C-alpha cells in the first residue's frame, strides 16, 4: 500500500446511478453523458484540512448548541458514534464531519421547509466534529422524526441524519445519510433505494449499541463511514492477508 498514491476508483456498483426515475428530482438533474475518467493529480490527492480551532465546544451537541441557556431540544436523546475509515480499514484522522437533520417532529429549520410539524425553538439541527487519531467521532442529538416529501406519491423519508465527510484528499469528498436500524421506511424510500446493493444500504444503517447506551440517560447508535482508500491492489491485499 502506498500513502501517496492515487485513491482507488469509486466503486460504482455500490453508488447510486445519477438517473433514478423513482426519485423524481434526479430526472432533470442527472447528467446524460458518462463521467470522464481522470488520472488524479496533485489537487485530487490533496484536500482542505480543518483544525480543532474551527470547532466550538458544543458543536457536537445538537441538544444544546442552538438552545437557550439551560434549555434543551425536545425529543429522544441519543448519541451517534463510530469511525471514519478507508477501504484498507485504516482510520481517517483529523477529518471534518458535518451533520444536519430534522427535529424530533420531522421539521427542518430551513426557510424552505413548511411541513406542519412545529419548529423546536431550542433545536437548530446542525453540528460538526473532527475525527481523532483513530478516526473516531461522536455527537449527541435528538432522534430525528420521519417526514413526508413531495415526490408524486405518499413518500416519507425514514428518520435520517445527513453527513458531509472530508477525507485527506479531494477525491474522498462524500455526502451521505445515516438511517436507523429497524425503520420500515428504509425499504419504501425512493432516495434510499437509489442505492443498488442492499448490503450498501445496510452499511448506511446505524445499529443500536447497548454497550455505549447509558442507563437512564440515552441510547447509543453506531455508524461507521468508509471512504475510498489509496494504493490498494489485489496483490498487496494477499500479502497483508486482508
Amino acid at each position: 500500500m502506498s500513502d501517496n498514491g492515487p485513491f482507488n476508483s469509486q466503486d460504482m456498483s455500490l453508488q447510486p446511478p445519477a438517473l433514478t426515475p423513482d426519485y423524481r428530482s434526479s430526472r432533470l438533474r442527472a447528467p446524460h453523458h458518462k463521467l470522464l475518467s481522470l488520472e488524479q493529480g496533485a489537487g485530487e490527492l490533496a484536500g482542505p484540512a480543518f483544525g480543532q480551532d474551527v470547532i466550538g465546544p458544543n458543536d457536537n451537541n445538537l441538544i444544546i448548541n442552538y438552545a437557550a441557556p439551560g434549555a434543551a431540544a425536545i425529543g429522544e436523546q441519543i448519541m451517534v458514534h463510530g469511525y471514519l475509515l478507508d477501504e484498507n480499514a485504516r482510520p481517517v484522522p483529523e477529518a471534518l464531519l458535518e451533520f444536519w437533520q430534522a427535529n424530533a417532529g420531522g421539521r427542518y429549520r430551513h426557510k424552505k421547509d413548511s411541513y406542519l410539524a412545529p419548529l423546536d425553538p431550542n433545536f437548530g439541527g446542525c453540528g460538526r466534529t473532527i475525527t481523532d487519531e483513530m478516526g473516531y467521532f461522536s455527537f449527541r442529538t435528538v432522534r430525528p422524526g420521519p417526514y413526508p416529501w413531495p415526490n408524486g406519491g405518499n413518500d416519507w423519508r425514514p428518520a435520517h441524519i445527513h453527513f458531509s465527510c472530508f477525507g485527506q484528499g479531494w477525491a474522498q469528498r462524500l455526502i451521505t445519510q445515516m438511517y436507523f436500524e429497524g425503520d420500515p421506511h428504509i425499504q419504501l424510500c425512493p432516495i434510499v433505494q437509489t442505492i443498488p446493493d442492499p448490503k450498501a444500504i445496510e452499511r448506511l444503517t446505524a445499529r443500536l449499541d447497548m454497550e455505549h447506551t447509558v442507563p437512564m440517560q440515552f441510547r447509543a447508535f453506531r455508524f461507521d463511514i468508509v471512504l475510498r482508500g489509496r494504493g490498494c491492489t489485489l496483490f498487496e491485499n494477499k500479502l497483508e492477508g486482508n
Partner: protein
Amino acid sequence: MSHSQSASQTAGPYVHIGCTASVAGLENMYGGCDLGADIFPPNVPGQKIVISGQVFDGAGDPVLDAMLEFWQADATGRYGANGPSGGWARRAVDAEAGRYRLETLLPAASGEEAAHVKVWVVARGINLGLHTRIYFDDLPQGQDPILVAIKDPGRRSTLIAQRSGDDGYIFDIHLQGDKETVFINV
C-alpha cells in the same frame, strides 16, 4: 481491501443547514461564520478575480438549492500551501436564480494541468456529488490531460470560463441537456 466504500446519498434541499448555516437562516450558528466563505487567507499573493455563474437543470431552469465547493492551486501552482483550508471555498447558489459568485485568486498551472478551479456540485436530485473544472479562456491550456481527452470542441467548451470585464469570468453549470457540462470521475 477489508471494507466497502460507503454509498453516497443526495445532499437534499436542506444541505445549507449543515454546510452554510447562515444561508439556511441559522445566522448565529458557529459564531455566524460559514466555513469556506473566504477561499484564501488575506494577503496571499495573486491576481484577484471573480468567477460567477448559474446552475441549470435539464429543462433549462435554474437549480435553486445547489451547494458548490471549489478547490484550487494558488498563484504558484501549489495546493494547500496557504493555511490548512486555503484554496477551498463553498457557496450556496441563491434562491432566486441559482447564481453563485466566487472572489478568488487566479490559479497557476500545476504540472501538466492547465490553470483551473475544481468544482463539486451537490443538490437535491444529485445522488453522487458531481466533479467538474473551471478553465480560463484567456490562459494557455497546453496539453492539459482533461481538455485533451475531450474530443468534441462543444463539450470541451463547457469547462472554459469566459472573460467578462476587468477581473471577471462567467462559468455556468448545466446538469443535463444540450449544454451539459463535462463531469469527471476523479
